[in-house]
């Protein structure tokens, strides 16, 4: 079998890949460096608020994936 790397096959797949990578990048350097300030937002540390935004974005991205590629499908 010829050696090959898997990649998305449709615009929906590519969109999901971009969404996954974006949400992962949002939680690591350098992005966390941009929110790394000793200020409070809604009474909570900015980095804490950002961490939970990233967490909720994970759910949103997966929800989007369920809409686009189906809960039981592959892509």
């Amino acid at each position: 079998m010829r050696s090959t790397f898997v990649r998305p096959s449709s615009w929906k797949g590519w969109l999901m890949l971009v969404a996954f990578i974006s949400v992962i990048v949002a939680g690591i350097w350098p992005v966390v460096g941009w929110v790394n300030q000793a200020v409070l937002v809604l009474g909570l540390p900015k980095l804490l608020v950002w961490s939970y935004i990233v967490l909720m974005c994970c759910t949103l991205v997966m929800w989007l994936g369920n809409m686009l590629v189906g809960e039981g499908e592959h892509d």
Partner: protein
Amino acid sequence: MTSLLPLWITLSYIVIAMLIGLAARGGRAMNSLEEWGVAGRSMGPVTLYLLIAAGSVSAYTFMGAPGWAYAKGVPVLYVVIYLGYLALVAWYFGPKVWAFGAKFGHVTQASAIADRYQSPALGALASLVMSVGSIAYAVLQTIGSAYILLVMSGGAIPVWAGVLLVLVAIAIYLYVSGQRAIGKTNVFQGILMFAVAWIIGLGAAHHATGEWSFAAVFAEVQQRNPEFLVLPGGGGDMSFAFWTTSIIVSMLSFMPPVWTQWMSATSARTIRRSATLLPTYYLVILPMIVVGFIGIYSLPNLERADTVVLEYAMANLPVVLVGLLGAGTLAASMSSSEPFIHSVALSWSKDVLQPALKLSDGKAGQLARWLIVPIMAFIIAPLAIAEPGNLVMILLIGLGFASQVLPAFIGMFFWTGATAKGVFAGIVTGFLVTVALITLWPHPLGIHGGFWGLMINLPVFVIVSRLTAPVPADVVERFFRIAAPWQLSSHKAEGSPVAVHPGK
């Protein structure tokens, strides 16, 4: 604190968990790997949600995370982010792993690896490497359980007795009901932990500030210790590099119990539904972190940061809440240790001893159940009683080792050209580098030792795979028809080249 009520509440939790675990068997025969190992692939979305959530929320949430918040501040949030990423991992890989298990009969992660690479030796190696991380994790949780019993009993239940009590309880219901016990107890434990964490967090905030929100807590910290609100934190040791690489290493550590959980689902759809909502559960960590922040200014001289929530609760909260905290912490530690103990026993039987001793599936199933006893008695109990090192560092070491098996998964999901020798070379190299860069020269340049291991591991894996004989084409195709069916032409003859769609 002299009341025995907290101890009785905590001990009652063990009794309830035992009853739930024993009842989970429901009259089924448990000597098959399929039933004891993956609960007959029967778990629905709610059970799976709480199974994965409770399994991933460990004693760390009630002890380690508040301890990090107390000692370092916001660096603790790396765990919130990586848990969210683990949900993404479950969403993408879970359905494929479930399909591998359902179609090819896999019950463990290492058996999938052995099948993909047609190498029982590689499966055994992956099983043993993963065991290091799994056992470290189980030891960590057992220490947490024993410590809770020590504190709740006012020292009457020493650590060694607490270790034995918790391990015996788990051994009994794990032996009797296997993965079904883990599923049912985790449902109970998951609900209990979430409720307890918020009750304790809000109660502590109200006691400390007079408010039922967390804002006043952080305003106080901002005024007194603003360095706790930014990286590298109060300890000055969580650099951006360590934050980032710890998250990446943790995310890429496909721990064996997680695979077992995925394979226990009723369907691929069940996994995606559960994974999508999984991040909502991790709100459980927030109130516990807040108690750690309260401790920064209200308990400034603690000897052991991990005890901040317990110390605060015992000094300031009603005894009923202290008892609930004991039960919640014990739930967190037991719900996380039992799947790891189960998966090590399952994998040693299926992937190490069965091929080595040429056992039948029936014998391997019986052996897996019995193996939990020596694993607990001769490995986990002695290590837990010895209480080695810092709890969080033990976890990071375990995850650092586990991430070295990544090449095996790349070959399973993304790259058809991966070979057994390539994976083998990558794992061994990465394992040795990780050992050296965690123990001898810890985390050079502030980068996690496991990440360094991966950086050496992956090129070795690719180069050796390029230079060695490929896995038979029919086997690779069998896997990629599930992992990436769009990569293959629909009616291709066996062994012919793969047709790659250029993208629609």
